[in-house]
């Protein structure tokens, strides 16, 4: 699904944020990117989402070299990816329902399809009852779930999550990770960056540890998938 070859990223400041990363994320796979703050996790996700361009090396997304995507094509590429951020970046001037509907509205879906899909997404994250609430009326865990519902509503091929539990207490963090597992079970490919090792230690997914911009270890799946 995603093949990363000799990827290097140097920011304008001159610092190497990533150096020679080689990594394959298969279709339907879920991986964790781990490492201390500053290791390069966010940079890697940004490069995959084309929020930044690599200094050298290639990213092949579903057979497509991302270097070939022009500025004009970029928005259409973005629609194939779902993002989840540490801060769910919800818009406070509208209901949770309308927040989740935004990517569908942008992509030009018909109203009845939007209603159907938003309700399905809300149901999946267990917040159907709160659909008319604006996000600021929800708890931080609920807000993050709305953010995830928004990321999956377009049925993206890949979900990229950058510290999705960074603002949540351990209980809620577990809940969110459980939600990602369920998304993976329906076939979505996920890459999740987190520095919280204790949270993911006993989760049966591949863990890639970054250290100073390089892959330190590419840990195997610790438990079998059930």
């Amino acid at each position: 699904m995603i093949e990363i070859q000799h990827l290097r990223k140097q920011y304008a400041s001159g610092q190497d944020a990533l150096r020679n990363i080689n990594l394959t994320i298969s279709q339907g796979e879920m991986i964790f990117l781990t490492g201390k703050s500053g290791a390069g996790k966010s940079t890697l996700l940004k490069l995959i989402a084309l929020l930044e361009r690599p200094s050298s090396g290639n990213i092949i997304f579903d057979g497509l070299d991302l270097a070939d995507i022009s500025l004009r094509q970029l928005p259409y590429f973005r629609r194939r990816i779902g993002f989840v951020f540490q801060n769910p970046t919800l818009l406070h001037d509208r209901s949770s329902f309308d927040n989740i509907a935004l990517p569908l509205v942008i992509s030009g879906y018909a109203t009845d399809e939007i209603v159907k899909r938003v309700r399905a997404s809300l149901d999946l994250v267990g917040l159907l009852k709160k659909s008319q609430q604006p996000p600021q009326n929800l708890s931080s865990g609920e807000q993050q779930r709305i953010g995830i519902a928004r990321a999956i509503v377009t049925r993206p091929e890949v979900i990229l999550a950058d510290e999705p539990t960074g603002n949540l207490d351990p209980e809620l963090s577990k809940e969110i990770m459980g939600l990602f597992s369920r998304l993976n079970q329906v076939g979505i490919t996920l890459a999740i960056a987190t520095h919280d090792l204790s949270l993911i230690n006993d989760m049966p997914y591949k863990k890639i540890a970054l250290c100073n911009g390089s892959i330190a270890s590419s840990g195997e799946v610790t438990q079998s998938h059930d």
Partner: protein
Amino acid sequence: MIKQESPSTGANRRHELPPDKPQNPPIANVRLWLNNHKQALHRAKFHLTHNLFASIVTILVIASTLTLPASFQILFSNLQGKEDQLAQHSGISIFLQKNIAQETIQQLQEQMTAKPEIKALSYLSAADVLAEFQASVGINSKKLLPGNPLPAVIYLTLDMANSSATTIQSLEQWLGELHGVDLVQMDSQWINQLFAIVDLVKNLSLLLALFLIFSVLVIIGNTIRLLAQHYYDEILVSKLMGATDAYVRRPFLYSGVLFGLLGGFFACVFVFLGFLWLDPEITAVTHNSVNSLTINGLNFTDISSILLLGALLGIGGAWIASNRIINEISI
């Protein structure tokens, strides 16, 4: 539970660039396009009504700034064509001294009719002159001029067949020396002077109008810039979710057009009210039949050109302002 697309659809997309536009049948594209514009207009209305007071103030500022160029436009479109009409006059105006006796006037008229170069003669008392002036300018001048400062006038029509430049010149001199005559003026002369002044005024007001129109562009641009800054998060999130620049820009363009149109509309209202204040009769179409300067108030062309100007300034200002914010968010 949400269902993932079947793997085969994913496989079909392999080795393909993402399409520039969703590959829909044409009718669906038309519907999508219409829907996009409907949404953008809806957002623009939301922008406008969200902070209603600020919007009203902005619209009134735009309207007052457009009022002056709009008035010029109407005045000058009324003057158009009148110049030639007036320049054809081949007569002499004799302005009489104030407070001269009725017999002197009678005497003057008799002396003039005796001259062979003079074909016809007409006398207008000071009151008549004022009435004609009012009718021709279309403005109730009592509001502008206190009392009646105008003199009585005798208009002479020359028999051009029986006169040459020299005879006219000596006639002019003779007229000037008559008792009771204040000033003798060849019509073409004062008409030329009038139009030289009109031309100067025209050029100055064009300059002023351009300046004011540019100000409206700046006002609308600044309003949209503030609006786009207010919706910075929405723009950012939308771009992250695959919104094109055109999609992000569209509601702001509509907002600009709405500001411009409403500003233009109220400018028309202001102009209308202004002319109404100067003369309540101004709006009557057949106001006067005197073959001279008439101001017809606002007509359809005036209104539509002011609205069009407003809309163009709106879209221009909004385009510049929204692009600046969109380019700032270069993701």
